[in-house]
């Protein structure tokens, strides 16, 4: 990777372009693995997924298998899911409950705190140098939570999760902290593999309400969404720190036909107790929250169902890169614990109808994500000298939008969601990280 090539990306990004070759370039991908996925906060799961002491779930941080366990004191710990003896994957299950995890190769066993507690014939065969306490499971260097959302970070020196989330916390409070008892994950995440680049899918959620009018036009044809191509633009696109961003979408009137995203009135007192006035104001007028936490966590809080009987649902999704042209999609459906069961059911049905592997909205997204890959693998699209003007266009709102200072929420809010402000800020942060040689050094090949 030549320095001038990165330099040139920088110039282009500042002008509102993205060289097309960076999408699928293997060298860029390696830098991303090292300097982004090795040093930023990656979502692991929600506290509601671990019910009691001994509960465990297995997740991935990029290519590292991770074992999350709730210990006796109710603390959640995360470890590399690899026996310290010879590296064997300790647990291949998705979830369960165990007091002890025993490795199938030589029988070493670990407790809920990842401590090595059993070595077959240990005392007989090992000598002095073998000190059990040194051979516990390798902990994920940093594990922190906010509003029940558990994140891990491979970088010992990373800033705290809360500092990293920054003003996104204010919006998480609305989506995750509004009701007593908080949120619960329903069942397990859906998982499937798509032909896509993780940057493009992250952008698609965090920064691209503009695609709704065409990609999801079938919903218009089906009379499920307004015909006005601007319908997804109303509201604010809010640029946050470190490549995070959120779109607070409302209607042309600035109001939502369904206050509090169609939540039943029985819940309103809770909201009014748990949220401040600015949060309530936004929450009362928003139709859809859609955004992302850099690098690869996206979320969508929207209403489904026919007008009048809209039901809100919240989904979080991780775009786990399996290569420059492949992602493993994880989708968690979440809902307020406090809601009545029948509402939960309707909300769940609304989610399934629109998103997830079989969702009608999602289907067309996957087609577009695949097409970006297909057209970004040749010489014309990959030429690093940009001889073919092979740059993508992120000019929307570049020189014709001013922040709306009256927007009640934190972050820099622009008075429309049809703008590329968040995308440009994601590119800048992405580039800052991959150009920073001090990050994630030590990573192999």
């Amino acid at each position: 990777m030549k320095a001038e090539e990165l330099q040139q990306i920088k110039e282009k990004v500042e002008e509102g372009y993205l060289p097309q070759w960076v999408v699928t370039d293997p060298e860029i991908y390696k830098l991303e693995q090292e300097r982004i996925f090795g040093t930023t906060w990656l979502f692991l799961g929600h506290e509601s997924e671990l019910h009691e002491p001994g509960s465990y779930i297995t997740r991935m941080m990029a290519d590292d298998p991770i074992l999350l366990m709730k210990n006796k004191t109710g603390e959640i710990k995360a470890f590399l899911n690899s026996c310290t003896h010879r590296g064997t994957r300790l647990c291949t299950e998705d979830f369960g409950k165990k007091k002890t995890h025993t490795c199938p190769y030589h029988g070493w066993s670990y407790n809920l705190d990842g401590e090595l507690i059993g070595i077959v014939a240990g005392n007989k065969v090992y000598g002095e140098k073998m000190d059990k306490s040194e051979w516990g499971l390798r902990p994920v260097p940093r594990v922190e939570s906010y509003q029940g959302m558990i994140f891990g970070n491979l970088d010992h020196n990373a800033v705290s999760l809360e500092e990293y989330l920054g003003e996104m916390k204010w919006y998480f409070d609305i989506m995750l902290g509004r009701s007593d008892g908080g949120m619960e994950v329903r069942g397990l995440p859906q998982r499937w593999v798509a032909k896509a680049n993780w940057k493009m899918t992250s952008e698609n959620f965090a920064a691209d309400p503009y695609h709704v009018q065409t990609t999801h036009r079938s919903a218009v044809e089906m009379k499920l969404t307004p015909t006005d191509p601007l319908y997804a633009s109303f509201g604010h696109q809010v640029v946050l720190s470190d490549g995070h961003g959120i779109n607070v979408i409302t209607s042309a009137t600035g109001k939502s036909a369904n206050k509090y995203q169609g939540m039943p009135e029985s819940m309103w007192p809770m909201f009014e107790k748990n949220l401040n006035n600015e949060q309530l104001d936004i929450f009362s007028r928003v139709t859809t929250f859609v955004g992302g936490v850099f690098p690869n966590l996206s979320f969508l809080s929207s209403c489904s169902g026919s007008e009048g009987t809209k039901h809100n649902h919240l989904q979080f999704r991780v775009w786990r890169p399996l290569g420059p042209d492949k992602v493993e999609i994880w989708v968690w459906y979440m809902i307020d614990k406090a809601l009545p069961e029948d509402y939960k059911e309707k909300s769940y049905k609304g989610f399934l109808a629109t998103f997830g592997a079989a969702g009608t909205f999602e289907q067309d997204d996957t087609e577009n994500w695949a097409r970006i890959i297909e057209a970004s693998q040749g010489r014309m699209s990959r030429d690093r000298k940009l001889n073919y003007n092979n740059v993508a266009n992120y000019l929307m709102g570049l020189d014709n939008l001013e922040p709306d200072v009256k927007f009640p929420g934190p972050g820099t809010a622009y008075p429309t969601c049809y703008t590329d402000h968040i995308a440009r800020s994601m590119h800048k942060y992405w580039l800052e990280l991959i150009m920073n040689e001090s990050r994630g050094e030590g990573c192999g090949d």
Partner: protein
Amino acid sequence: MNQGVRDVGTDLHYEISQFLYKEAYLLDHRQYLDWLELLTDDIKYVMPLRVTVDNKKETNLINEMTYFTDTKEDITMKVERLYTKSAWVENPAPRQRHFISNVMIEPTSVVDEYCVRSYFLFKRSRASEINTEELFGEREDIIRRVNGEWKIAQRTVYPDQAVLTVMNLSMFL
């Protein structure tokens, strides 16, 4: 499933397996409106998640979360959508093929309703892609005879993978 017992006999097995093949044929030829006709109005069409769990657990299927839990209305909506001008995912249409085998039929406590198990191997070829997509597993149906015509009153699709390797589930299974 003890042998021979509650056996439905050759002719009924033929009728119902033919029904399943014709259903697959309609799907593979994108005759979705005709296919809709094969579903009862009260159909339950569900695809749970498959997970990896310790064998001590009684099942490795998750019903609490599914890929879809559709009523006739939901399915109708999906079908109609495929006929819009902007259902990009299937225009141009990928080629799909439902290989149906291992059809096993048992009567139920309800007259004219049969429990039909079948294995499916689904293959899809998109545009000029060299790599084709694949999905496989088992289907458990309730097939009902309604004025002399067979209908699907219930279908549960059990995928065999914990992580699906199709880019979406735009197909019907």
